[in-house]
Structures are given as structure tokens and as C-alpha cells.
């Protein structure tokens, strides 16, 4: 019984000491946001400064919205994270990548797009947020599946 109590106390203590660990698991608020401004608020990126050092490689026209390749690179020194939003999707925030231990601020991922929309990328560096956008025209939407 004592051992059980110690385990429970230790687990509770760990949870209290590391609230960020719980938050980092999955940002329900940001991913559940139904508009881009709300999602930006959810990841703390309101008022991000436009930057030409974020490179977004997307097709100009996507014939199939179910699979739109997005390749992003940040040339902003000290970039710690990159987030991808599709402004007009039902839930705009698609992904957030945190880079550590030598990982380069680069990622390639396929996303779904329901309709023609801006693809918005947020980079976080030195405690500040930067943003770049690029429009993708979608011929057939891909949010039904």
C-alpha cells in the first residue's frame, strides 16, 4: 500500500513539476480552432512578422486536394519550430514541428485541402514568430476523405 501511495505521489509530483509535458502532448485548443486567427492564438503566434526567410514550396495548382505536397524551410537563424496552417480548412492548423538537437528547420509533408486557400507557415525563433503564406489553387477538394 505504501509503495502504491509513493508511486501515485511521485506521478502527481512529476505532473505538477512538468505541466509543459502535458501541454506539449497535443495542443487541443489550437488544433480544434475553426479559423486561422484562433489557431494562431492557440499556438501563441498572434501578430507574427512577415518574413521572406521562410521558404514554402507548394504546387500553384493542386489537382487533388487530398494530397498536396508542402515543403518548408526556415532560413531564420535559431528557428525552433515550424507550424503549417491551411487557412480555409475546417480546422486550419495541420501540424507543428519542434526541432532540437541538430534537426534542421525543414520538413516535407502532404496535407489535405478542402478548397483553394493560403498555406500559412509560422516559424518560431528567438521567442518571436514569423509568418509567410503562399496560395494553392485546388481543383478537387480533399476534405471528404
Amino acid at each position: 500500500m505504501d509503495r502504491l501511495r509513493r508511486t501515485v505521489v511521485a506521478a502527481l509530483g512529476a505532473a505538477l513539476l512538468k505541466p509543459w509535458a502535458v501541454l506539449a502532448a497535443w495542443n487541443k485548443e489550437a488544433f480544434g480552432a475553426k479559423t486561422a486567427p484562433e489557431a494562431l492564438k492557440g499556438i501563441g503566434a498572434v501578430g507574427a512578422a512577415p518574413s521572406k526567410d521562410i521558404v514554402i514550396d507548394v504546387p500553384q495548382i493542386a489537382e487533388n486536394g487530398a494530397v498536396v505536397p508542402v515543403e518548408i524551410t526556415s532560413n531564420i537563424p535559431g528557428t525552433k519550430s515550424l507550424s503549417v496552417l491551411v487557412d480555409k480548412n475546417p480546422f486550419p492548423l495541420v501540424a507543428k514541428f519542434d526541432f532540437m538537437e541538430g534537426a534542421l528547420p525543414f520538413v516535407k509533408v502532404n496535407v489535405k485541402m478542402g478548397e483553394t486557400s493560403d498555406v500559412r507557415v509560422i516559424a518560431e525563433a528567438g521567442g518571436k514568430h514569423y509568418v509567410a503564406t503562399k496560395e494553392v489553387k485546388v481543383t478537387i477538394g480533399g476534405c471528404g476523405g
Partner: protein
Amino acid sequence: MAAGPMKMRASVNGGVTDIRVLMTHPMETGQRKDQDGKLVPMHFIQNVTVKLNGKTVVESQISQGVSRNPVFSFRVKGGARGDKVEVSWVDNQGESNRTETAIA
């Protein structure tokens, strides 16, 4: 469709390790209807973690907006042939999977 196997390739070129990983997963949005007109429940990967020699290098949170059978590319500075790369995921229904490979 249930979650299935993963495939991964990692190679080092000019001091940078390229990691390419494929996951088999339906990534259901919760908005699609099945043949009987019933909504298919949300089922999607939420977390993807990349480790190099046991150290976490990329931690990602993703949504149902990522395409079915997700494919990711990541780049890590350093890494040598034979080093171990591990990628794991967890979805919103608690399912998970992992794969590892040696850098070629």
C-alpha cells in the same frame, strides 16, 4: 482501414542526414461518410517523434489535415552511416507504432 506498417529510409549526404518515413494510417477527418451514410469517426495520428541515436530531434503534433498514409521528410545535421534513426507515432485512439533503421 486500420493502421499498418511503416517504412523508413535514412541517408547521410554532405553532413546532413535525410530521413524519409511513410506511415500507414487512414487519417480519418470525422467528416467522411461510409457506404451506409454514417460518419466515420475521427482517427488520426497526433504525435510523431524522430530520434537519432536515442536523442529526440523532432517532436511533431499533427492533425487530421495531414493526408492519408502520411509521408514525412526531415533533415538532421550530423549523423553517420550506421547511426540509428527511430520514428514513432501515437494516434487519437491510443494506437501507436514505431520503426527504426540504420543510416545508409
